[in-house]
Structures are given as C-alpha cells and as structure tokens.
C-alpha cells in the first residue's frame, strides 16, 4: 500500500507538467512582426569634400514608407558643416529612360539637438535584381551649392503591417496610400497613420536642372478623408470586425491619423474609402458587414492587408 501511494505520488508529480504548452504570446508576436526601431546607415553619397550619410531603419530601404535621417560631414575637417537646408529627391529610371519619382519629403527638416535632417521616402516598388533606385541630395554651404547622388536597392517590405497601395481614383488621378504606423500592431487600440499622395504629371521639357526631369511627381493630398473598416478576410473568420475604429483625417504633420482596433492576432484587411475634400468618393466602397462564416470576406477595391 505504501509503495502504491509512493508510486501514485511520483506519477502525480510527473503529471503536474502540462500536456500542451501554453502559447508564448509575446514571443509569438515578435516572431510574426519584424520590427526595426534603429536608424542605421543605408547609403553614403560623396560630393566635393562632403559625405552625405543617409540613414534608414535597419539600414535598408523597403517598399513602402521609409523614414530617413540625413547627416552631412565635411571630410576636410571631419566636422559637420553649417548646412542650412537639404533638398532630397528619390527617383527610379525605367529601361526606356523615363524617370519616375515617388512620394517623399523634398525639404528635409533640421533637428538642432542631434544635428541631423529628417524626412521620408515612399518607394512604390521593390527593385528587381538588375534594377536600382536613385537618391539625389542638394545642399548649400558658404553660398556654394553641392549635389550628390547614389544608387540604392529597394527591398521587399518584410513587415506585413506597412503595406501600401497605388491606384487610379474616380477622378483619373493616380494615388498612393502607404501605412506609416503601427510598426508592430497590438491587440487593442492602435493609432493608424498613413500617408496619402497623388501623382502629378510634369512636362519634362520645362525643367532641366535639379530637381531632375521626371515625368511623374507626387504630392501629399490635403483635406481628404480615409474611411476605415477593418475585417478579418479568412473564410474561417467569417468577415469578423472590431469596434471603436476611427476614420483617418489629416493632422498638422501632413499624415492621416485614425484608430484601428484589432481584436486578435491574424490576417486583417483594412478596407478603405477615400473621400476628397468635397466629400466625393475617390476610390473604395462599403464592404458587407454581415457575418459570413466559411466565405472569404469581400475586400474593398481600396484596401491594405495586415498580418501580425
């Protein structure tokens, strides 16, 4: 009997360990979403005796929205020169020689505390193996203008939460919406930030100096509104949605801010309707709000997919 108890005691202890491991929720979210918070050097441009350091997150340029920082050093004295302003211009040259720019901040903003300039660039596409994109920078020191340029490689966006979409609106204008944040969405309320740009055709013959002749040029759109309806598109999720979302409106930083709630991790689709300042639909439509288990959720013609 004593042995029996002893054995059952040992068996009980062995059984104390759980059969199925609990999900390591935090680790799993990190594995799903690669996040880069650090700016690293992504490109070096040389001009005269200046070196232009262009920094991007993780030291790489990805398709979509890329915040950048630019520092310029004077190699003659290894000092950061007194530079009052920097102009920044990215573009891509097609095989037929035509040039296309992409949304970007032309006049970079100076941060005196850390002595760098900041801006952003939204790359419309990743570069194929034999392609590259170009960055041009111009700045003035002691009343002397300098120009620098260099080639960079745009990689596929590894973060499935920083997607973008390019489309032609009902007004026949080409638009581009790129997600800026959240980098790493969480279950619950997330501030959703997007840049909305429209493409303008430029008569290339009218411009011959910097900014270099490009046929297409993007500008931030102002006064638009982006209506949001987030849903889980997988058939098993039955078009599930979340409460308390807020449409995106433009704030002082030029970007569009709203709120998205994610009720759980997984695949989400942000269904959008873009309204112009007069309230007309530029692109997108209402999607079904019905719960339709087993049927893949219909997406708006204007949408961006998310996975976290």
């Amino acid at each position, binding site marked *: *009997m*004593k042995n*029996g*108890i002893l054995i*059952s*005691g040992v*068996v*009980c202890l062995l*059984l*104390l360990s*759980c*059969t*199925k491991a*609990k*999900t390591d*929720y935090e680790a*799993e979210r990190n594995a799903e979403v690669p996040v880069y918070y650090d700016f690293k050097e992504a490109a070096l441009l040389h001009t005269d005796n200046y070196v232009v350091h262009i920094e991007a997150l993780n030291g790489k340029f990805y398709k979509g929205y890329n915040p950048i920082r630019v520092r310029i050093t004077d190699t003659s004295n290894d000092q950061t020169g007194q530079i009052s302003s920097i102009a920044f211009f990215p573009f891509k040259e097609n095989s037929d020689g035509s040039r296309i720019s992409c949304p970007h901040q032309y006049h970079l903003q100076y941060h005196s505390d850390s002595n760098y300039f900041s801006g952003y660039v939204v790359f419309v596409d990743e570069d194929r193996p034999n392609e590259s994109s170009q960055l041009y920078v111009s700045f003035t020191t002691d009343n002397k203008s300098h120009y620098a340029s260099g080639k960079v490689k745009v990689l596929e966006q590894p973060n499935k939460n920083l997607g973008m979409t390019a489309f032609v609106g009902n007004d026949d204008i080409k638009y581009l919406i790129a997600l800026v944040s959240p980098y790493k969405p*969480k*279950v*619950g*309320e997330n501030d959703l930030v997007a840049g909305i740009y429209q493409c303008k055709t430029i008569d290339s013959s009218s411009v011959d100096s910097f900014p270099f002749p490009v046929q297409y040029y993007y500008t931030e759109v102002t006064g638009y509104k982006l209506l949001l309806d987030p849903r*889980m598109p*997988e*058939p*098993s*999720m*039955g*078009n*599930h*949605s*979340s*409460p*308390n979302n807020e449409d995106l409106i433009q704030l002082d930083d030029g970007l569009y801010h709203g709120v998205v*709630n994610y*009720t*759980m*991790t*997984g*695949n989400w689709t942000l269904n959008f309707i873009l309204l112009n300042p007069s309230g007309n639909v530029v692109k997108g439509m209402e999607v079904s*709000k019905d*719960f339709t*288990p*087993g049927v893949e959720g219909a997406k708006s013609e204007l949408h961006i997919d998310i996975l976290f």
Partner: protein
Amino acid sequence: MKALHIALVILIITTGIKAQEPAQDDTTRVLEEIKIKAAKRNIHADIKQSTSIDEYLAASEQVSFIKRGAYAWEPLLNNMTIERSSITIDGMHIFGACTDKMDPVSTYLESNNLSSIDIRSGQEGNMHGATIGGNIDFKRKVTPFGLLKKWSGIYQTGVEWNNKQVFNLLNLSYSGKRFVTDGSIAYRKAGNYYDGNQEEVQHSQYSKLNASAGLAYKTSELSSIRLDAIFDVAKDVGYPALPMDLWLSRAIITSATYKQLFEKGSIRSWNTKLYFNAVEHYMDDTKRPENLVHMDMPGWSTTYGMVSNLQLEHRKLVSNIQFNGYNNLSIAEMRMYPQDRSKRTMFAYSWPWVTTTYGGVSVNNVWMRSENTMLRFGASLGYHYNYSRYVEFNRIFYPHASQKNKRILTGLHVGYEKKFNAFDFSLGAGYGQRAPSVSEGYGYYIYNSFDRYDYVGNPNLKNEISYEVNAGVGFQKEELHLSIKANYFHIRNYIVGKVLSIGSPMNYQSVGVKAYSSLKYARIFNATAHLRYDIWKHLHWESSMTYARATDNTGTNLPFIRPLHYNTSLMWMRHHFHIKTMLQGDFAHVNYSPEYGERSKPAYMIWNIAADYAFALHDINAVIQLGVENLLNKQYSTYADWGNIPRMGRNLFMSLKLAL
C-alpha cells in the same frame, strides 16, 4: 411575479402564526445533507447503488442541472448557475479550466472518493467564501484512526446497456493506531447513448479515470497531519450539445491538513489546510465534420490556497471561524486553423491570464437557546482581487478597463428555528455579495452554443448583491414526515449577457456578440415539498416536488429555471431484498425564456425501477442490483438540455458491490 409574492407572503404568514406554539424536539435541519454512504441511500430518490457524482447530486431537491451530454453536468443550486455558488472540496476552491463550462468541479471527482456532499443554501453557505446561491462542499472519504478492522475494501462493478457503460471502482483503506492510509481508483467508459426513439446520440461517449490517495499520521493524542491527492483524467468525452468535444482533461488536487483537537476550554478544534490544484482542459473539434474551421481552445486553471478553521464552543453557543485564502490563475486560448492545419488564422485569449485572489473571514454561530429553539447567525468579509495580464483583450470593448480590480465582499445571515409538538419551523434572512466570475469579468469571445452568441466579459461589472429570505415548515409523526421549504432571492445587479451591437461575431456558428451586463435586479423563488410515509413496516413512500420562478426587473423570465418537478417512489424491503420504483418528471415548461434562447418544453414523465439483493460470501458482503431507467423508453428532452439534446432512452443497468 405577483403570484410569486403572494406565495411567499402566505408562507411567511403561516410560519409566523404557527411559530407561537411550543416546540418539542430539535432534530430539524434546514440544511440538506446528502449522505453518499450506502446505508443512507434509501432516504433519497436516487435509484442506483453505484452512481456518478452527478447522479448523486441530482438526488438533492435544491440542485438541478444544465446538461450538455452524458457527462459533466453543471450543477445549479437554487436554480442559479455555478458562478453564483461556491463549489469546494473539503473547503478547497477549485475552478474548471473550460470557458464553456464543460468541466464543473464535480467532474474531477468520483463517487468512491467522497463520503458526503454538503449543500448549504444561500448565505448559510458563506463558510468557504462569498456566495449568493450557496455552497456545495464535497467531503472526501477519510478513514478514522484505530478501527477494529485494520484493512477494508470495497469493489464496485457494473454495466449499463444503453450506452455500454462499464465501470470499476475500488477502495482500499488501512486504519492503524497512529497511521491511516486510503486509496481509491475508478474507471468508467461509455459509448454513445440511445434516445427513446432508439436513435444514437452522436458524440455522447466518455471515459474517465480517477484515483485518490490519502495518508494520515497521528502526531499526538489530539493532533494529526494528513496528505491527500486526487488525480483525474477524462479522455475522448463527447458533448452532443456543443460543436466540440473534449480530447483530454486532467486535474490534480492536493492538500496537506493539520488538525488539533482540544480537551479543555472554549476552543474545540483547529484545522488548517494548505492546498494546490491544477486543471488542464483541451477541446477537440476535429471529429465534427460540420466544422470547416478548427479551433484549439486549451484552458488551464491553477489554484493554491489555505483554509483555517477554528471551532469554539461556549455554553450553548457553537461558533465556527474560518479563514479562506486562495489564488487562482485562469488561462484559456483560442487559435483557429483553416482546414489546412499548417496555416493559422488567428490567436486570442478567451481568458487573458486572469488572476483571482481572495482572502476572507467567515463566522457562523449556532445558539441553542433552549431545547426547542435555535438561532443561527453568521457573517463573512472578503477581499477579492483580479488582475488581467493581457488586459488589451478586455479593452477592445471596454477601452478604460483597469488591469486590476479590487472588491470587498460582505455577507450576513440569520436564521431562527423552533419546534413544537410534531411541527418545526424555520425562518431566515440573508444579505450577500459576489464578484463577477472570470468569464463574466474578463472572458473574451466565449461562444455559447445555447443562444449562439459570442460572450465578452466586462471588467467594470458591479458586484451582485443578494437579499434573501427563507422559511420552512416540517411535520413529523412516526410514519409521516412532511416538509415544505421556500426561499426567495432579490438579486441586484444580476449578471446576464446582453446583445452588444458594436461587437462583430467571431466563432463559426455565432450570430452576434453579447456582453455580460448587470440587470437592475432579478428575483428567484424556490420552493420544495417533501413527503415520506411509511405505509407499512416494509413499504415506504417518498415524494417530492419543486417549484421555481425567476424573472428579471422587466418581468422577463430568466433561463434554466426548473419547471414544476416531481419525484415519487415506493420502496419495499424484506430480508435481503430491496425493490424501489420511481416516477419522475417535469410539468410543461411554461415560464421559459425565448430572450435567452429557450424553447417551451412539454411535460414528461419517466419510470425507473431497481431491485437489489444482499448476500454474504465468507467475509465479503455483496449486493447485486438490477434495474431499468426510463422503463417506457420515453423520448424526451428537458428545459435544461443544452441544444435540446434528447435524454437517454431505456437503460438496463446491473451492478455488484463487494465489501471486505
């Protein structure tokens, strides 16, 4: 509702008038106690000699059940679901690990490791912590020290034909002067059962293994220590009323107890127990072809705690002071897969690592004013603390929900009992509070297949506050025993699910989202009448009837309230023979609640019969039993059958009990 009031008023008036007369004896007990011992079996309506825990509990008039199949019935005390009752094992708190209530505490026990079940209604059940409906305390079997017979054992085996159930239960114990040990092992396996139309009820099978061991050592003449463990594992359990089954559930329930008795002074005994229990529960929905999506919903519940009880006696006053402290962590996950299991669709916590910590003191007193009058009074004060680790899930619907939540829970009760001549009367009142359960407070997208809504908890829910009155009258004269009892609860902030229009459903069969919300109040009335008449020395008649009515503040019926129910049985005993036949049934479910997904159910009646014969084989006392449940093979489903699943049809059973 008016009728409810009138019934109550009449009851109180009649008790009031009769209470003026002198009383004679003091055997009345308002509290029910079901003895599981075979010797006491015949005082109850249950018919089988070897039954499951659920069948034992069903013998109490105060307990009804929600049934999701053949296994793991959810016990309702005073027609209130398990959140409103405290359910304990020797005072130890243990919580199921399934968000869909597929594992009430009773599933982790087996009838052969228990000695009795103590059911206390309302605030009289506050001994083990805050409650509203009452307390169900499962008492472990404990072998006393120094029995004449050092070794003893009981073996029970049986078969039930309807669902091809086979069970084997074995108990062994050793009782020495200083050392006692006991152990039990039980195994049950059942296939699908067949309803009254001979149709197989798919996914109603189960298998369960339960083992327990106890070890006690007498440290001095008046003190002892005891170690206990129960291990339970259920595998491949079907829930015909749910869209999924159980793959595996396991529980380990352990405790260490120190007991000190005192010969002199007011302190009679001091009993302290430290305990730990862990429950894991894994569902399986892959055996249901209708599920195009698969969801893993594992759940874990771990509790440790302490119970310390001091019993005092001073002249005619007996006091019980108990400290209860426990900490529970409940975790439940949801992970969905499309049919291709290598891809996953979503992940969320249905219980986002919710910790519940409770510490409280309960005091209960019995004052024997005279031989015929007795006063009971008691109070409880508790501190209840919740912490939700991944509160972001709760903040989806309640953006300002706090991660931590503190509550103070109080309870009070008083009861008066008086006897004269052949009559006895009791009258009582109580006030109590309870905190929302883990699901009610922090649950997230818990699918309820009864009303087909996804439920979300609300961390900001107010405490439920209960005001109760109870009364009873009994008559006892040699061959006739008659008793009528009633209680009435007015519960403020009564928690129910209300449709949440901003919620979007998620579970496959769901039609919408409901959030746990507080009604202004709800009212529940329960009445039972019990009669026992010894027609002849060898022939006894026993009958009982229960009535309940419950409505919310708008007069809408509450769900799962038992319709008028009756149970009547005849027992004939002669020498070693014992025959019992029983009719039981419900009247039509008139006061059903379509708002909560209920449908009207017609009346039903079933007839059971059993006979047993006792004989001796050398030193072994044997009892063999043969019986039939639902003899007429009635096709029926009751108000409490989740998903309107039909109940078992005719079931022939046989069992053999050998006691050494």
